[in-house]
């Protein structure tokens, strides 16, 4: 894959990254997600609190969890609702968001600790809040790998 940076002073203030490919391969999708992760602070998720529509920065999100009626979006102090389905969001969210159970996705940048549990779901603590999420055994390995990747990258 070629990587090329074109500098053009006539271009506007907002940089644009275009990926040219003949097919939507896994590598391209991964690259797109990685790039989305870098600019995630600019991305907003449309959420609701009662009748109010809010545009929430992805960095603020701790985890997302499906309920039978809505998708709950947890921040450190609030719970918002979103209209989208969890699997649809999973495809679109940056790589910092990892599936932790059949019904939840967590933002690993906000994870403070993972209390591993051999017999049941592992408890996830987040920075700056008492809220907990639970990673099921099926998804724990994936979560730990992602956390490990993040640690090595640092």
């Amino acid at each position, binding site marked *: 894959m070629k990587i090329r940076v074109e500098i053009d002073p006539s271009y506007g203030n907002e940089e644009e990254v275009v990926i040219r490919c003949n097919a939507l391969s896994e590598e391209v999708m991964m690259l797109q997600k990685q790039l989305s992760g870098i600019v995630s602070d600019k991305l907003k998720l449309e959420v609701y609190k009662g009748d109010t529509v809010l545009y929430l920065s992805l960095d603020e999100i701790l985890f997302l969890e499906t309920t039978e*009626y*809505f998708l709950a979006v947890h921040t450190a102090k609030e*719970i918002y609702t979103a209209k989208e389905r969890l*699997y649809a969001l999973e*495809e679109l969210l940056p790589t910092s968001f990892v599936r932790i159970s059949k019904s939840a996705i967590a933002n690993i940048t906000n994870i403070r600790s993972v209390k591993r549990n051999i017999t049941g779901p592992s408890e996830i603590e987040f920075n700056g809040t008492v809220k907990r999420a639970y990673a099921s055994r099926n998804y724990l390995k994936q979560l730990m790998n992602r956390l490990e990747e993040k640690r090595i990258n640092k």
Partner: protein
Amino acid sequence: MKAKRIIAGIGLLAIAGAIVINRFTVINFSIVNIILSVIACGLVITGLRSRNFFLTLLPITFIVHRLFGNYSIISKISLPSAMGVTALVAGGLTLIVGGKNRRIGSGNTDRCYINDWSPSGGQGGQGGQGGGQGGQGGKEGLPGFLRGEVGPVQEDGSMQNNGTPTDDGEDIKITNSFGKLTRYLHSENLKRVKIDNGFGNCIVYYDNVYVDENGSRLEVSNGFGQVNVYIPPFYRFRMKQDNGFGSINVFGNSSMDPNAPLIDAKIDNGMGKVNIYFG
């Protein structure tokens, strides 16, 4: 329906096991014993569901004594004595853990959530495959709700409902026997929340809840599982706890303002864990 399937499944397993055991002539199985085993399994399941130690342990004792009564260890105690001992054990456990034969879903409640057997009950269970629109690149490739711009509410076919939670009413009862149950409470005037958890993991959020100056009651009864209750920190909190061999923990701080509405909690915990979070 699922409980019936499980009972039927256990019955088949019991018959299969009985046939194998019979081939090895460990015990002499008769058709009567097989039928009694199936009935006993059904009673045990029912006992576990209703957290009734008597209904759980007595059939086990009966069937074990009947099947393995020829063994020297078991033959030393007669069936009535074994049943008597089991009844004492069940009575002791009931007193310690606080289990009782609850009528699930009974009571005058506005909203009653019940999760008996589902391993991930109460969840949406949306494990399907998403579309490929994420790979289209740029903001145009993202749907409206993920774009870095403010726009009108997008209405498309993928929405499961209008996203607005319904009001659960003043009196909410949540029952969970096994598996995981997560509930987000929404009430314009909450008076009472009753959580009854057996072996599972029950998580309750006071999400969009208003409690007036008269306060609200929180009653938690937990057997062997775990109950997590998230309460906003702007409420006062008072707790009366009755703990067996488990643990009751409070994380974070509730309001110290004497004018803040009071949440009066009564926590009855057996061998599980109850966590109250403020935040």
